[in-house]
């Protein structure tokens, strides 16, 4: 592989560049990605600010307002939606044929899929920083140095959610079926997590739901980001997110193996 290193670097750069280019050319996609969390932050969080009291929980050192609590969850939500958008884009690329161009490059399939995943993560990080900047400018109290320390957490959570999206894209055979993914994956993952409410609060109302939320890898992505935003490392969240990433990626590479007949939809000629 060392002799081929320039070919690997060239392919990785090419795939990430293409994803970034496509994202920049789809301004509506950027707006949609921003509007969703901002509505949650400025409408939903504003309403709950007075109603919901939050005790001091790590990583916070003092009482916080609800908008401060919800901000890391919304960053993770951006990455969750971006992972699913990337998945949708892979189904689209497969239907439009451009996925074949990627999969017939003379490099290992796992590397090509990882490159595609990296492109999606790059885009999700751009969106996350844009959201954090807007939130900061509109008065959400976030530590400035947290913008730096959160970066590795954004990479790992983006990879995990992107790999989940990639796995889903291998199972969704038609674009029309993608609405089901929204209903059965995105919403349950988001609402059954610590993005909107702390786990102890959920436990007060339902122990069963608390356990579901505790097992949800998205909860741990949220907590990884939350701790990293305050310069702290959440070891449990890191291990669960990293392990989930490995499982989702391996399953996606397996699902995209040529022996699984991925391209049979192209028909027989």
């Amino acid at each position, binding site marked *: 592989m060392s002799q081929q290193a320039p070919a690997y670097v*060239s392919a990785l750069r090419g795939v990430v560049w293409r994803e970034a280019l496509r994202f920049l050319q789809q301004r509506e996609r950027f707006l949609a990605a921003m509007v969703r969390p901002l509505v949650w932050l400025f409408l939903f969080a504003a309403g709950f600010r007075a109603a919901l009291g939050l005790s001091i929980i790590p990583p916070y050192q003092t009482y916080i307002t609800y908008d401060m609590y919800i901000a890391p969850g919304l960053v993770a939500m951006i990455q969750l939606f971006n992972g699913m958008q990337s998945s949708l884009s892979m189904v689209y690329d497969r239907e439009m044929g451009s996925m074949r161009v990627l999969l017939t490059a003379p490099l290992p399939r796992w590397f090509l899929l990882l490159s595609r995943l990296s492109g999606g993560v790059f885009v999700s990080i751009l969106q996350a920083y844009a959201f954090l900047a807007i939130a900061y400018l509109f008065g959400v109290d976030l530590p400035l140095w947290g913008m730096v320390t959160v970066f590795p957490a954004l990479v790992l959570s983006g990879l995990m959610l992107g790999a989940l999206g990639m796995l889903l894209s291998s199972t969704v055979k038609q674009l029309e079926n993608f609405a089901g993914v929204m209903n059965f994956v995105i919403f349950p993952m988001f609402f059954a997590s610590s993005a909107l409410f702390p786990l102890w609060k959920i436990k007060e109302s339902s122990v069963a739901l608390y356990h579901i939320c505790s097992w949800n890898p998205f909860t741990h992505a949220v907590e990884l980001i939350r701790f990293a935003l305050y310069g702290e490392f959440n070891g449990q969240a890191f291990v669960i997110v990293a392990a989930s990433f490995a499982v989702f990626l391996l399953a996606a590479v397996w699902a995209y193996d040529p022996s699984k007949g991925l391209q049979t939809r192209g028909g027989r000629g």
Partner: protein
Amino acid sequence: MSDRGRKPKNSNANSMRSGQASALSVSGVSFSYGAVRALDDVSFDVLPGRFTGLLGPNGAGKTTLFALITRLLSQERGEIEIAGRDLARFGSAALAPLGIVFQQPTLDLDLTVRQNLAYFASLHGLSGAARTRAIERELDRMEMSGRAGERVRVLNGGHRRRVEIARALLHDPSVLILDEPTVGLDVPSRAAIVAHVHALAQERGLGVLWATHLIDEIEAGDDIVLLHRGRIVERGPVADVVKRTGAKDISEAFDGLTRAGAA
């Protein structure tokens, strides 16, 4: 005698005839979709500098064969060698000397012609000045230099196909395979692309495998492989096939072989 069961007269006749190493060698390849046999013991060679027409009616197995050659499907039985490299042994690395034009359009409509080519070049390890030179060279060859900055979405079908052929040649492959590349094109565009790829085979010494069900895309000096219901029913130079079948031309030979097999 049923033509469907008929074996071609000479095994791997092309390479034996010339003694040249094959650009692409397919040997004993079979493939099934569940219980349905799509390809049955298919063997043939594509020689450098030769245009080989892979002929067959719709459903003959051409696209399945392309999916196997490009590793979009895994081989069940048989061997495929690209420029001497066994696909099963070398995996994706064996695809390096292969240029591919799929039946389905595969360009990114929202990117420009140049951006599409740059993306593909990067997948094949080309970067910097080498990539720029390759893009200019192939766009010039396909007479598309003036459209390099335009989004693919605004191009007509013939021009999109030209871009796809230019893209397939960027990394200087030794084999070019095209799966029904003229589907949906008007007559002048079709004729221009057929002539261009014939010229490419001769000028660059490329081994070309051109899948089609349109017999008029084949020229008298070409080789053909005639696939019907997943089996090869004839192969060799056009003149030899016409002579063997007793037909007056390749069109009549094609009709006879595929009609008889269907009966």
